[in-house]
């Protein structure tokens, strides 16, 4: 739970268990790096945390402009953290544009730290300020700590003889130093990191370390407006073990690698760059030693087709994209359905429709995932709730794909892809293997039946190159057992039924739906999927703390759904489904279970805040 920091008027009686800090500056100011290092420092302090980087859409927007602002928010604390926090307690604004675009989100009474050195006439103009907000009283409802960080940084790195531009680049380390002081953090790991990072340029290393120390010292010695004080957030009780930070994109990449290994298969990854899906490809190109072949195709269609080709040839085919690219893959997904080949399709959802908002997050591709193909073409859909959960979901997608010879869609989103959270590094020895067996000889006496189904309705996987098992497959309806072309009515009926039964049957291999907070029945269930996990969980927690009868159910398996889900939902008077779309998952729930699932929608390209969901819970129970 995030609470207010250093607000003399704060009415909260709770001790600050968590704090939300947002670093905002020009794209060139290194805010993502600052945030990343502050995150590591939080991890080392034993805090739990969640982060939310918010990039500009432009590659490198002109300096000082409003659309060129890059921000990084972290919520950290001595309690369990599920979201990047609703409203920041502290805003670090490196220039007027950063202040303008971010101050609105700051809590009343929150703290603004601003670099006056950047509040020049020209920068104010670029940020469309007539007068400096630091001077016109417009920031009255917040505390303002404005001082010339630029000058202080220049001063601190003077001994190293850097050029003005280079010297100013150390501003972010100065600021980080100050932040470390504020939250009583150890500088040593950061200094080590800087020395490693600039190992080839001692001067730069020293300068950055000097800036860091200077920022820290400034906090230590300066009179920071009187009421800002050093704050120590203790460690959150955490199981012992090895931890790391992980982003959703990395988690998907690692999960896919693990999944392929558990299946005893090499992996083929066909991709085409698109924000925010590219980072999965970027991660996988560096993992070739794990039997990963990556292929940057000419487009999304070629990417999925090559992946299907690789699956046909006996590897685990994977493809990944975001909404518009996934749209292009629809036809080929149908072929994978018809040929019953394993395939994992990852969709890192972004704001839509069309090109939409490439750098913003949304959950609006669920319809596309569940329903978006021609013909009756059922495809299982798995969704990740958080960066670390994405690792498990990727493995699960691989498992379903190879055990059921089917394409599987894995849904993540822009928020999960970029956000980082602490992750207890799992021990692969604890993973359950699902090794694949290829057909080695004819499976019906003298005859090969490529479409003979096993108890689960799955056909055999037959690898070209295997002597004696030559056969032909394709996208035209296949005859039962033989897989020959067959247009006959009875056969099409039988195969349509068989494909549906196979996918429906996957439900038997997935765990029953649990209630992650609350009771299996009651007045209200808040049912979520994907990255809304954090805000829903917090909101339900708060509501329950206030005594409300509300539970949180978070669905990983969007299609097919857990077998008990229908019954479970019928145990509640009301069902509320918060989604970052106009109400897509609620369609699936209403269709499948005929429960009156009510949507709570948000399509602003921003994650839900806890408060928004809390309000909806209160509304539903009012």
């Amino acid at each position, binding site marked *: 739970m995030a609470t207010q920091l250093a607000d003399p008027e704060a009415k909260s009686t709770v001790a600050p268990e968590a704090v939300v800090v947002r670093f905002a500056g020009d794209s060139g100011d290194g805010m993502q790096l600052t945030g990343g290092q502050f995150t590591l420092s939080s991890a080392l302090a034993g805090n739990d945390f969640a982060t939310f980087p918010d990039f500009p859409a432009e590659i490198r927007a002109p300096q000082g402009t409003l659309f060129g602002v890059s921000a990084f928010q972290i919520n950290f604390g001595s309690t369990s953290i599920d979201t990047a926090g609703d409203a920041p307690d502290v805003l670090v604004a490196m220039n007027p544009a950063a202040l303008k675009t971010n101050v609105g989100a700051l809590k009343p009474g929150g703290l603004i730290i601003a670099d006056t050195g950047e509040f020049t006439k020209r920068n104010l103009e670029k940020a469309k300020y007539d007068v400096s907000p630091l001077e016109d009283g417009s920031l009255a409802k917040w505390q303002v700590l404005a001082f010339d960080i630029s000058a202080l940084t220049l001063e601190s790195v003077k001994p190293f003889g850097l050029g003005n531009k280079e010297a100013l680049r150390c501003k972010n380390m100065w600021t980080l130093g100050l932040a470390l002081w504020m939250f009583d953090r150890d500088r040593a790991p950061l200094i080590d990191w800087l020395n490693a990072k600039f190992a080839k340029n001692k001067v730069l290393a020293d300068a950055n370390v000097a800036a860091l120390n200077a920022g820290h010292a400034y906090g230590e010695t300066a009179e920071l407006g009187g009421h800002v004080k050093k704050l120590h957030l203790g460690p959150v009780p955490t199981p012992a073990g*090895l931890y790391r930070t992980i982003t959703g994109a990395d988690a998907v990449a690692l999960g896919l690698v693990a999944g392929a290994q558990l299946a005893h298969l090499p992996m083929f990854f066909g991709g085409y760059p698109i924000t925010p899906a590219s980072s999965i490809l970027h991660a996988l190109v560096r993992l070739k030693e794990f039997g990963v072949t990556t292929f940057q195709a000419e487009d999304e269609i070629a990417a999925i087709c090559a992946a299907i080709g690789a699956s046909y040839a006996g590897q685990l085919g994977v493809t990944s994209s975001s909404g518009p690219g996934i749209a292009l893959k629809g036809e080929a997904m149908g072929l994978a359905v018809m040929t019953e080949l394993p395939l994992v399709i990852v969709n890192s959802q972004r704001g839509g429709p069309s090109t939409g908002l490439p750098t913003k997050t949304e959950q609006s591709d669920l319809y596309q995932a569940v329903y978006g193909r021609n013909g009756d073409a059922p495809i299982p859909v798995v969704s990740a709730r958080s960066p670390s959960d994405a690792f498990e979901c990727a493995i699960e997608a691989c498992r379903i794909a190879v055990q059921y010879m089917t394409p599987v869609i894995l849904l993540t989103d822009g928020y999960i892809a970029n956000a980082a959270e602490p992750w207890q590094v799992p021990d692969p020895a604890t993973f359950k293997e699902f090794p694949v067996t290829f057909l080695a000889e004819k499976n019906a006496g003298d005859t090969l039946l490529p479409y003979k189904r096993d108890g689960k309705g799955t056909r055999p996987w037959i690898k070209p190159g295997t002597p004696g098992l030559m056969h032909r497959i394709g996208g035209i309806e296949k005859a039962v057992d033989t897989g020959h072309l067959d247009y006959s009515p009875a056969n099409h009926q039988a195969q349509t039924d068989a494909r549906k039964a196979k996918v429906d049957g996957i439900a038997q291999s997935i765990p029953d739906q649990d209630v992650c907070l609350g009771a299996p029945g009651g007045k209200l269930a808040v049912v979520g999927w994907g990255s809304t996990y954090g805000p829903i969980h917090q909101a339900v927690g708060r509501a329950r703390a206030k005594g409300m009868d509300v539970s949180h159910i978070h669905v990983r398996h969007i299609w097919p759904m857990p077998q008990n889900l229908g019954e479970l939902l019928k145990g509640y008077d009301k069902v509320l489904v918060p989604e970052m779309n106009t109400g897509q998952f609620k369609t699936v729930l209403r269709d499948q279970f005929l429960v009156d699932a009510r949507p709570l929608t948000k399509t602003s390209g921003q994650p839900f805040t806890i408060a928004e969901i809390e309000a909806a819970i209160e509304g539903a129970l009012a």
Partner: protein
Amino acid sequence: MNAITPITTTLKDWETDQEVRWCPGCGDYAILKAVQRTLPELGADPANTVFVSGIGCSSRFPYYVESYGFHTIHGRAPAFATGIKLANPQLDVWLVTGDGDGMSIGGNHTMHVLRRNLDCQILLFNNEIYGLTKGQYSPTSRQGTTSPTTPLGSVDRPASPCAFALGAGARFIARGFDVSKELPNVLKAAYHHKGAAFVEIFQNCIVYNKDVFNDFAAPKGAEDRQLWLANGEPMLFAKGTQGIALDTEKLTLKVVDVIDGDWQAAGVIVHDVTNRSIAHMLVEMPFGPFPMALGVLYDDPRPTFEAAVMAEREKAAAGKEPNLAKLLAKGQTWTVTEGGPEL
């Protein structure tokens, strides 16, 4: 997986039990037979051979060849072939496509598989029409082609598959036609070329575009209208009485008469399959004023895509141990003990 000793097969071994479902008299039958006759001569192994196709009459081909076969979706066969070959470079991959499949919807994939130089044989059956969808004009249809979508004749300028392939960076270009006796030789050359081998095969769609290639493919007078190219041989036709020479002024090709077999005197060009400029001229040589250029027009291999990908994968993996536990524990880690976290 690749057979070390060449496999002995016969034509019969390459026939499937499926009824062939092309129109009686379709040129596809002849091409099928030519392929089935050639494969044994190449020592190909049915178990190690994959025929990949898109959609079209031509793309039904895999069903009739007793090997592995994948009848995919319209226009995308090159992408499937790429995945197959990268997953298992040992496989012999044949790609069968049509003028609609490979030049219309699939033009981009055709381009990129050629540019990347994936080791495979690409057989483009050019009947200058969409057969399977009942006869609409295609990107290779000649201007003025009447069809259900162009009742007054098509107006688009046709694409030339070989010129397109060359522009896309192809390193092997050949031409043949369905009933030609030479077709097996063309197929063999394509097979032996390491890299993407592009073969345009003129094919008679007797239902929707009957006999459009008769001008040069009809047996009668074929000699005068077919220029069969052979590396190192002079470009002669009409029983050696005519040849192709270079007009050095206009920098174009011209037809010259050869008197008493003295082709040198007539300036007839000796075909060099590695000469790209000649290849450009041959692929664009207009039939009518010139004979139809057939056989291997261009053959100048370069390293293949899958070899480069494999090499890079090996380089990247060299000395690295694929330890999943270590991989998961990479990056900025810390340990939480009873005493709290530490780096």
